């Protein structure tokens, strides 16, 4: 029974590992192919099945005028929008989360939990519902197709995540530490900055990682709210897809653009049990 269980366990893990890795391996081999080896039939192993070349990777750094793909600018745009929006969301979200965790609010029938729920419930909002008014509004104030417009929209996407994770994290940080700080003569802001925040770094890291993930992987708003002036990475790569099917450069650019977030996987794994993620979803 026990041996059978262990066998089953490793069998399942191996199957899933193959499933997870398969598209990456396929993209990696495809990125070294050329027109001939893509269209002649399905091939897997370089040197044996097909002659590898670097054409797919070379077009990434060529200028568009010479037939290159030019993903450098979208790359930095994506990076800039994601990081700025995440940073703003984390700062505002953490402040609000701290208030909701430490103080009691009451305005009519609205209490702390309702305010927290209001923040989190923004995730329920289907993006399509907001896309049409955002589209019309941003075009009215000339922010359509600009980085600022995107950052504003992304704050709405990301702040709920920051609040969601941080409220429960602060609930776990003992109240005594800020009370001691207040007795020692700090004002509430100093207590927050010098005592509570340093004790909340794991929570901040988890919240930050989640913001970065959900900012970086968003396609929908970038697709609807930008056209030519500002291009984000996902939009750029999907646009490549619609042209003649240069699978090799497509694969290479896809790999380049998913690579940076793999580091995030390591960080998230590291802080898994320290970040109080399980407290946040109860």
């Amino acid at each position: 029974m026990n041996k059978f269980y262990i066998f089953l366990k490793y069998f399942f893990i191996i199957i899933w590992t193959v499933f997870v890795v398969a598209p990456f391996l396929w993209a990696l081999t495809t990125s070294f192919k050329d027109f001939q080896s893509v269209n002649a039939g399905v091939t897997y192993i370089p040197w044996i099945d097909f002659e590898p070349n670097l054409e797919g990777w070379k077009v990434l750094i060529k200028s568009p005028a010479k037939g290159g793909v030019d993903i450098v600018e979208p790359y930095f745009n994506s990076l800039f929008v994601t990081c700025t929006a995440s940073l703003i969301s984390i700062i505002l979200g953490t402040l609000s989360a701290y208030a909701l965790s430490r103080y009691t609010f009451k305005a009519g029938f609205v209490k702390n939990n309702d305010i927290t729920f209001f923040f989190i419930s923004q995730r329920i909002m289907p993006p399509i519902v907001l896309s049409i008014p955002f589209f019309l509004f941003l075009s009215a104030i000339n922010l359509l197709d600009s980085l600022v417009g995107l950052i504003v929209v992304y704050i709405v996407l990301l702040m709920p995540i920051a609040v969601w994770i941080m409220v429960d994290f602060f609930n776990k940080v003992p109240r005594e530490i800020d009370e001691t700080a207040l007795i020692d003569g700090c004002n509430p802001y100093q207590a927050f900055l010098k005592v509570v925040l340093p004790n909340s770094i794991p929570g901040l890291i988890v919240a930050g990682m989640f913001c970065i993930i959900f900012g970086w992987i968003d396609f929908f708003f970038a697709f609807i709210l930008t056209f030519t002036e500002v291009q984000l990475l996902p939009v750029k790569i999907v646009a490549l897809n619609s042209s003649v099917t240069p699978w090799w450069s497509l694969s290479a650019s896809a790999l380049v653009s998913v690579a940076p977030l793999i580091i995030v996987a390591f960080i998230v794994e590291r802080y898994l049990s320290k970040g109080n993620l399980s407290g946040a979803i109860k």
Partner: protein
Amino acid sequence: MNFKHKYFFLFPGLFVLIGILIFPIIFVVRLSLSGWNSYNPGLDYIGLENYVRLFTDDPRFWESFFRLSFLSVTTVILQYVIGFALAHMVWKDIKFKRFFRVLFLVPMMTTPVIMTVIWRTFFHESLGPVNDLLSIFGVAPKWLTDPVIAKFTVIIVEVWQWTPFMFLLLLAGLLSLPKEPFLAAAIDGASPVRKFIYVTFPLMAPISIGAIIIRLIEASKIMDTVYVLTSGGPGTSTETSSFYIFIKGLREFQMGYAASMSFTYLIIMIISLTIIAKVLTKILLKE
């Protein structure tokens, strides 16, 4: 504690969020009462005409909604089962524990649309590896152009992409469980299966509910994957509500009608997610 300071902490975030959101939401409601389209762009007032059209004369919207329910419920159930199994497997000591944990998280970190572009080449009918390997058995499913199979292709891609999120939440939950119940079970000599049914699963119930609800919320937004993988096709066989609203609103520029659809859709989502949450809480916590 001091009275005034608390507002300085809460308000910046709250007001930014409300400030960004309030006008769009009011605007959607107002827009849904207008006949804004590409011939007649303006906020005229046509009453409930759009809603009447939606409820009496648009089966395509309701079909897309049921399709969306089918897709999201199926993917979330699959993700929950697989995610729980994976989390349970790498919870206790196995070889290369950290390696597997990181590896199982990776798909979630990749941009869905970009991976879907890769999946498209992966499932390509004549040049993709899946059909090449399946040709050994003499079958060649039309992954992207058969109305029935295309739905399952979408499900496969969604499961690949988002099982890691379920895995992450459930693993975090497993790691936070108290040790005592497991010690008690070990002393009683419970078998692994009984231990799972009577100890692990009940302890995980609240976390399971949370994780399922979060995933259902996110899964109900399925749109990018469908757009890139099949563009809603063949025909309308993989079209989801969001995608249909997108076509009506930002492709055909029937803004007014699209707004009435998105408002209806929002209300349905809020109601159904609340009901699902209540039902799940009852089922999982009573046992």
